């Protein structure tokens, strides 16, 4: 079949319309992410207004949470979120870096594949399963450990307060420990990718100067990948702050502001999940939604910074 010019010109407008429509659809789908983020900010803020109207800014500075007395304060939950997330990062960062360095610098190629799968496998375990394991298996075992440690440090100046008296296995510490396992995959995989961009010439240079492997790592590999690792740690922090179910099950659900890591507490996402079912009044729901808003804003700021840091790190490495 031959095509005459008339056929072609006939086809062109239709094809152009199709092409335009396709482009428009993809553009809309791409824009959807921004639309959803804006919608989240708008609708969630909207529903938090009742509690802000009745409590004002004190919502963030009030320590007490007593819905039956109409007192709604988020401070102890913000504290719990911060302390458990920081604890998780403090435990997870050295371990994740160790795994990332072992995978990229020490392990032979064959083993490397297995190590990558291992960390990915941790990410596959759903958070509710970690929570179940934490509440039934880990927490009762940890109680004995906590009692031992707190007896040991009893009467010490600062450590005595941090590792204070305990009555339960469900504590800030337990939540921090579970979280640290859960954020290890994300910190490990991002730092591993950044570390792998370290040029072979840098590493060979260090070795040629007579450095041991560890000196090569501290002298060439780590300085090169530092900013990327910082970004990875921040992403891990954001993940730890937003983790809900695992924390809700093991933190003990009693709002507390104390330096004692062996005391039970509560966090923003955990209280939302735990008290949602009992929240029948509009003001209490609004207070819980306002905590969600607080969480959203904190994690958005952390993620914005982290993404910017990681982007800049990889861009500099690629030399664009």
């Amino acid at each position, binding site marked *: 079949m031959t095509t005459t010019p008339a056929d072609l010109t006939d086809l062109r407008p239709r094809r152009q319309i199709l*092409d335009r429509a396709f482009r428009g659809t993809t553009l809309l789908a791409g824009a959807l992410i921004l639309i*959803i983020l804006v919608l989240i900010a708008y609708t969630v803020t909207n529903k938090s207004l009742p509690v802000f109207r009745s409590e004002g800014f004190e919502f963030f500075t009030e320590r007490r949470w007593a819905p039956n007395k109409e007192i709604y304060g988020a401070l102890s939950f913000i504290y719990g979120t911060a302390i458990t997330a920081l604890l998780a990062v403090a435990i997870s960062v050295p371990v*994740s870096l160790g795994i990332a360095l072992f995978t990229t610098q020490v392990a032979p190629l064959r083993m490397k594949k297995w190590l990558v799968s291992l960390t990915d496998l941790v990410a596959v375990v759903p958070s509710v399963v970690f929570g*179940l394991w934490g509440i039934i298996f880990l927490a009762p075992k940890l109680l004995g450990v906590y009692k031992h440690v707190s007896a040991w440090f009893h009467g010490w100046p600062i450590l005595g307060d941090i590792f204070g008296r305990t009555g339960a296995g469900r504590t800030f510490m337990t939540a921090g420990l579970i979280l640290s396992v859960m954020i290890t995959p994300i910190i490990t995989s991002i730092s591993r990718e950044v570390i792998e961009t370290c040029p072979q010439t840098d590493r060979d240079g260090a070795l040629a100067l007579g450095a041991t492997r560890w000196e090569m790592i501290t002298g060439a590999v780590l300085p090169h990948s530092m900013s990327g690792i910082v970004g990875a740690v921040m992403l891990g922090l954001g*993940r730890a702050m937003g983790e809900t179910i695992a924390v809700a099950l093991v933190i003990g659900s009693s709002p507390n502001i104390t330096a004692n890591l062996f005391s039970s507490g509560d966090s923003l*996402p955990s209280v939302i999940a735990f008290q949602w079912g009992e929240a029948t009044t509009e003001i209490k729901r609004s207070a819980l939604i306002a905590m*969600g808003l607080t969480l959203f804003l904190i994690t958005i700021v952390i993620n914005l910074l982290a993404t910017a840091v990681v982007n800049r790190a990889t861009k500099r490495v690629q030399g664009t």
Partner: protein
Amino acid sequence: MAVVTANLQPRTQQLAAELTGISGRRRTKNTVMTVLMALCVIVVGGALLLVLGTVFAKGWSIVSGQFPAWFTKDIQLAPRRPGPGMKAAIIGTAVITAMATLIAVPLGILGAVYLNEYGRTRLFARVMRFFANVMAGVPSIVMGLFIYVFWVVPRGINGLNGFSGALALACLMLPIVVRSSEEMLRLVPQNLRDASYALGGSTSRTTVRVVLPTAAPGIISGCLLAIARAAGETAPLIFTIGAAKRTNWNVLEGTNTSLSMQIYGNAKESFVTAQERAWGAALTLITLAMLFTLMARMLSARIARTR
């Protein structure tokens, strides 16, 4: 050290070791740090094994002990009584996750097509890419609250159904699908596109007929990982699907339940029977998640071989 001496003869290696003369302290530090790094791997591997081992040991006796009933009977109404089944939750997880996939995967792939085929380095595309990363970090509980406020509240009590849960999960999956799909589209060689253009293909036709089929295995692999992640989520469902103990095949109507919700609910109970139910559900859920992850792995391994 290893890199430099790897290709030398054994005798020369020995000589090199003598010549470099690394002091004892430096050598010890190197060894200690290497051992510590290996220890990190062992600690995390051990923790993972402990979790998986406990779930398997405790879950297996429940699932196999009530073998056919576990998959065919609805959930026991009273948590303290030993109950037969988990069918309602298995079906719930399946239909809700499937619905979420139907929503998030096409939109995510289209978004990725925009980013890689049209937007490329334009400011708008760069901003979108940036926010896809940011959205991937938004806690899943916030997605649940958002869908509750935005979708469930206007519909009142009828808003609590599988579809609302699927919407929340879709919000969670969207940025993951966009990011992984774009990565796969970027790997498609430019030659293929150029060849299609030379034959007179438009961008849309090139994308649909050439680029997407080429990237398909990788895109599917990414989507499977996103599905595995969504199937295990609990937080977004608390606000959106209500609570049910009977099997509900209808995503669009009526309250529903899921494996993750059953684990969460039963883990909070102090009755041994409820806890056993939670372990059984955990084993079922982990097996599902592993299955999807394994399929994704096999797909990406096949791509790596053909490339």
